[in-house]
């Protein structure tokens, strides 16, 4: 009993945990001082992958809570057809692909950021979504449909803030000029499409190959039978 207590105590006093808490708290600085914040996040090692992943999970959880508990006046979700894991995957997969596409492009055009840096910056940029939309789920249950303006404005503010942070984040991580960042954002989207295309081609080839072997097996099985 006392042993586990002391162990947990020592865990919360450990340097690792302190670093994690500090990097979590650092998000507040990033939100309001994005230029400084993102620079120090990666170049001064103020952020951590653990904290970034935590924020990514919070984002996914926010999305799920939003789908489940937002009042029906403000959201159109046929809950009977919704699969939570599908929803999470549909956010997580493009997000990671976007990071990958950005990394594969910028690494060729003297971007300073490593993959982990890009991932970290993108995750920290998602914080406003969680911060604003989670309380909005509660708010949606205490306002009526004709007061929706309040709700929609805050929704768009959160999205705009996220986009702004992604832009600044990538700019600081790669040490790019704003113009170059814009060009590479567009290129990243194109890269994303190419990756998806290649994945689809690969999958269809795979299924063709598989069906070939399956039919081969069947043919043999029938002959022998």
């Amino acid at each position: 009993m006392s042993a586990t207590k002391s162990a947990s105590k020592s865990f919360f006093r450990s340097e690792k945990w302190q670093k994690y808490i500090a990097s979590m708290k650092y998000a507040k600085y990033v939100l309001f001082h994005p230029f400084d914040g993102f620079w120090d996040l990666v170049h001064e090692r103020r952020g951590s992958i653990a904290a970034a992943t935590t924020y990514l999970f919070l984002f996914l959880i926010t999305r799920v809570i939003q789908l489940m508990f937002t009042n029906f006046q403000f959201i159109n979700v046929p809950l009977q057809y919704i699969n939570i894991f599908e929803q999470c995957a549909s956010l997580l997969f493009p997000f990671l692909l976007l990071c990958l596409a950005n990394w594969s492009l910028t690494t060729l055009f003297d971007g300073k950021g490593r993959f982990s840096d890009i991932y970290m910056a993108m995750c920290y940029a998602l914080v406003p979504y969680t911060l604003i939309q989670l309380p909005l789920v509660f708010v949606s249950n205490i306002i009526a449909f004709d007061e929706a303006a309040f709700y929609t404005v805050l929704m768009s503010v959160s999205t705009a803030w996220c986009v702004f942070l992604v832009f600044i984040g990538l700019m600081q991580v790669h040490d790019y000029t704003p113009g170059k960042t814009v060009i590479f954002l567009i290129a990243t989207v194109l890269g994303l499409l190419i990756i998806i295309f290649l994945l689809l081609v690969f999958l269809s080839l795979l299924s063709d190959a598989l069906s070939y072997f399956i039919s081969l097996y069947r043919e043999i099985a029938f002959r022998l039978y």
Partner: protein
Amino acid sequence: MTVKVMHRLLALIMTVIMFASININTALAADDGYPVSYTYNYDYWGDIRESPDAYRVDQVIYSVDLGLDTAMRKPQSLFVQGNDLYVCDTGNNRILHLNRNGNEFTLVRVIDTVLGAEPNTFNTPNDVAVDPEGNIYVADTNNSRVVMMDKDLNYVQQFVKPTDSTFDQSLSFLPNKIVVDKSGRVFVLASNVNKGLVKFEANTTFTGFVGANKVSYNFFDYIWKMYFSTKEQRAQQVAFVPTEYCNIYMDADSFIYATNISFSEYDLLSDVAQPIRRLNGIGNDILIKNDRYPPIGDLYWVEQSIPMGPSKLVDITVLDNDIYIAVDQTRGRIFGYDSQGIMLWAFGTTGNSEGTFTSAISIEHMGKDLLVLDQNGGNITVFTPTEYGNLIYDASESYLKGDYDGSAEKWEEVLKLNANYNLAFIGIGRSLLRQDEYIKAMEYFEMAHDRDNYGRSFRLYRKVWVEENIGWVVAVLACLVIIPLVKHSVNKIRMEVAAYERNQVRK
């Protein structure tokens, strides 16, 4: 030999079982776009929901039953006045006058000559109308006239091609559909006139066009045509012209309902195509659309995996309670909408059995009974509302009258027969809201996904709640303000004490 037969039999049985199981599967699936029963409705998500039958076939009237020597050939239109039914038997150049007595339809007379007119016979008449005095109007298409006769078939006057300069004189005047209002004004839907309905005063003078279809064109088509085509190319391309209506109907308040079947099908769901319109005096569309989906007929256009295109609403009729009913030729289907544009039911299909159509062309109502004309079969199907159909009518009629609680009782009855009926939930919710039962009303509105009414009752509920719990609300708010204030001042005093002590020590 017998083994072979046995094999074949087995194979046959297997295929039958396979087909049966496929059919069972489609019947079980909720959202595959196939109608699975004769009568259905759409829920909030646009999924098809089976429903009890709103109408049943009462009888089918064939030419033989009426004692006609020559069967009806390509009849195009029906007209009802009181118990009289007029059938425009286009292919035989005649009008049939039928009378309904109880459930029996009998032939009164065959109208094929107009006494004293020149010419005195019809040439492919496409529509017939009767005014309150009993004068009969016939759209005598290939004679280029609308001929008017009194009830004894004596020629009165005719409406011919206007000599006015607004009417393109190079076109021939081919009246296709007509309606006559209470004061004897005639509105003509003429083929190849795209400026709208041709309007004649009671004294046959032409007074202009009413309610032209809006010209619709694609943005890119416009740019291409205006800036990238030569004059010669432009002359060869199709001009941007409004399309013609398909059919017209005049309701009890003298508003003209028009249906339209030529549009791009992608404009349907965004409500640009507007296949059903209600035209006011100056020709603007004033149809009310308060549903999530506009009144376009079917929302799914693929049937048994064959794309059949959108519903082709060839005719429309309006009941006295402002419920309008349109008939679709593509799938032989009949759609009922209430005055708010909310679908009440849809039923019917193509086929040769009773209650199905090979090519429905016209619809009329006699009281609440529906009469549907099939142009290929040359028969008229009479539908009467079932208990369920009548309940829906009663409920919406008592609501229109202002008897909200009576209407709610009717909706309760409807819900017992069909638990998927959104309108019933809204009707009951409204009545509950009037009785200040906010929470219950909110439950009903939520089931029907009615945001506006839910919001309304929620605001009232919130007001009551805040008034009841104002003490707690103030207390919590006060705590939220006071606790940090106290904390702050306590900290401040502590700091001062500490600073004072430090000074003391230093001294």
